[in-house]
């Protein structure tokens, strides 16, 4: 149990490249914080700095209020699941899990070690594999052994470096649930690196988005989704990605390449006087006007578009609409795509419609758009012009309350279980 504070952390490798640049994050006791970002943005480096395997070039790292920049890894009392598990191949599963306990000479009796390892292996369903060696285990089993080794010690905090990245989709789903429940039950502060959207959104109390070593925004998943601070966060969070349409605000209306529509007053003020802005509209902000419930209709505007093609996935359906790319924002969007590790941008609007919708390629259709949730971005700076920090903070506060309630419930449950 511990709080972890990162204060203006900088990491420069020998070649001078700042892999982590001025990152500050306060991690509360018991909180589950996710680090996301495209490959090479410094997530692993940051984690290794926290655990002590990488020197800190500048800034301070505080654990429970104490500066630990120069403290050896073993004295920081954190445990870590490595990106590639790093199990000891010459030891059995039992000995792998017992390894951290045996290193604390004299603290645990033989029986205590056996009891603790058995407890953990029970929880992770590794009982029948205790005598086997890591080389003979499946990926998911190895992953659980790595988890076991990390949690057996009751360290101050758990650090995870993409622990699920090598598992197949089904196993990943199972393990995700297990990790989430485990963390809630133990209430241990956790930092978790991933580049999987679903893991980030479901596991994290707060998610920190990194780009090229710099922290872009740290907030609850909901705040990131509803109130992204800038173009990069808006594009990175959410799948499929947010659409960015080049447009101008004139006479209280937003004119876009796929049609003009009214926008709320706040948006008008934000976009007024700008030569050009990018309207960020998530695919799910659209709906086929035909299948729309009446009550929603008044909250948005209608657009006439020509559909190029559709994709039906069973539980969802996507409609694609071509538009003219504006030369003035082409570079911005191209470099954004590169930052996000995405393919080239195509001037194509992605619209999520209900699977029942009968729209087909070549049709002209009426599409409804929820204008209140649109964000406007400055293409030059990437800044979100319609960012409402207060509304965002409210979302994150709510998430924090939820976490505290969850933790209390988990505590009550364990106490009740202990009494009965």
């Amino acid at each position, binding site marked *: 149990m511990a709080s972890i504070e990162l204060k203006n952390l900088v990491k420069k490798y020998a070649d001078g490249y700042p892999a982590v640049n001025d990152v500050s994050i306060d991690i509360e006791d018991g909180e589950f914080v996710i680090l996301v970002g495209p490959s090479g943005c410094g997530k692993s480096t940051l984690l290794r700095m926290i655990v002590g395997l990488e020197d800190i070039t500048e800034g301070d790292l505080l654990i429970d209020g104490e500066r630990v920049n120069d403290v050896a*890894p*073993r004295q920081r009392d954190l*445990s*870590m699941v490595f990106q590639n598990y790093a199990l*000891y191949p010459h030891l059995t599963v039992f000995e792998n899990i017992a390894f951290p306990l045996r*290193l604390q000479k004299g603290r645990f009796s033989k029986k205590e070690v056996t009891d603790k390892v058995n407890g953990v292996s029970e929880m992770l369903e590794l009982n029948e594999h205790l005598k086997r060696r890591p080389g003979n285990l499946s990926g998911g089993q190895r992953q659980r052994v790595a988890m076991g080794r990390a949690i057996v*010690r009751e360290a101050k905090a758990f650090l995870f470096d993409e622990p699920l990245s*090598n598992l197949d989709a089904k196993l990943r789903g199972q393990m995700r649930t297990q990790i989430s429940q485990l963390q809630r039950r133990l209430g241990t502060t956790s930092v978790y690196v991933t580049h999987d959207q679903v893991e980030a959104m479901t596991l994290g109390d707060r998610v920190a988005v990194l780009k090229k070593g710099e922290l872009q925004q740290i907030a609850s998943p909901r705040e990131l989704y509803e109130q992204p601070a800038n173009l990069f966060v808006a594009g990175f969070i959410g799948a499929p990605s947010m659409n960015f349409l080049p447009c101008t605000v004139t006479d209280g209306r937003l004119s876009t390449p796929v049609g003009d529509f009214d926008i709320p007053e706040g948006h008008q003020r934000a976009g007024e006087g700008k030569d050009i802005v990018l309207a960020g509209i998530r695919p799910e902000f659209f709906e086929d006007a035909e299948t729309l419930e009446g009550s929603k209709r008044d909250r948005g505007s209608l657009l006439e578009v020509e559909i190029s093609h559709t994709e039906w996935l069973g539980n969802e359906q996507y409609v694609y609409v071509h538009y003219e790319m504006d030369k003035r924002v082409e570079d911005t969007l191209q470099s954004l795509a590169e930052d996000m590790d995405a393919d080239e941008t195509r001037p194509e609007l992605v619209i999520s419609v209900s699977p029942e919708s009968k729209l087909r390629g070549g049709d002209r259709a009426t599409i409804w758009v929820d204008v209140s949730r649109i964000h406007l971005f400055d293409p030059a700076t990437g800044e979100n012009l319609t960012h409402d920090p207060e509304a965002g903070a409210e979302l994150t506060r709510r998430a924090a309350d939820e976490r505290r309630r969850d933790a209390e419930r988990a505590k009550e449950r364990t106490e009740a279980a202990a009494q009965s």
Partner: protein
Amino acid sequence: MAAPGGNTTKIKVGWAVLFVVTLVYALFPVFSILMTSFKTPGDLASNTLLPASFTWQNYEEIFVGGAQTLFLSALVNSIGITLIATAIAVVLATLCAYAVARFDFPGKKVILASALAVSIFPVISVVTPLFNLWRTIGLYDTWIGLIIPYLSLTLPLSIWTLSAFFRQIPWELEAAAQVDGATQWQAFRKAIVPLAAPGVFTTAILAFFIAWNDFVYGISLTSTEAARPVPAALAFFTGASQFEEPAGAISAAAIVVTVPVVILVVLFQRQIVSGLTQGAVKG
């Protein structure tokens, strides 16, 4: 199902035949020498594989008989010199290979290349200058005078095999152990040494063989029982009388020096198993 089944049987039989042929090819000379070592002096010229009658005479000759001083001192020299040379080579090569595999430093390639370059020169081209040098500085006919050239044979090979082996070790385990609460030294000893040991053992055995089997240095750089190793000593064997061939005694001695090698391999067979690093990291 029948076809693939038949196929695997065929492949198995093929391998078995190949295995037996190789085994016979490799072991027949050893068997022949073993049989010769049991022959009586009169029997030696008989050109039969098996001795007419088994005798321990040749072994008595080298251990307690006329060739005793020659052979036993040579055996002591061989064992001593080879063990020392192997130990030094393995320790130095381990340190060197660790540095090569673990750290990036200028001149890394130069070290590996020069190790290779040293081993390119044929022994026979080095031995004459070495002979002159050793005579001058007094290393001729001493243990050290052999250990040094043996190091020049064993070190390059040891450095190359060990650095190839060390490169495969998942060094991240050291970091993992430190996070688990180990000191730097504990992390090395508990996570890395068990993985490195098989490579070190294998290298040690290879180095031992090279030094143990050397003949050219052994015969050229020694002149007395003070340092002469077994392969060289064999050349000085004489028969019990000058009319007898020493082939029996030489065979017996050859068998005796083969035994430690066989024992070594059998003893450390478990340590030589490879693939111990499997499963440390995913993928």
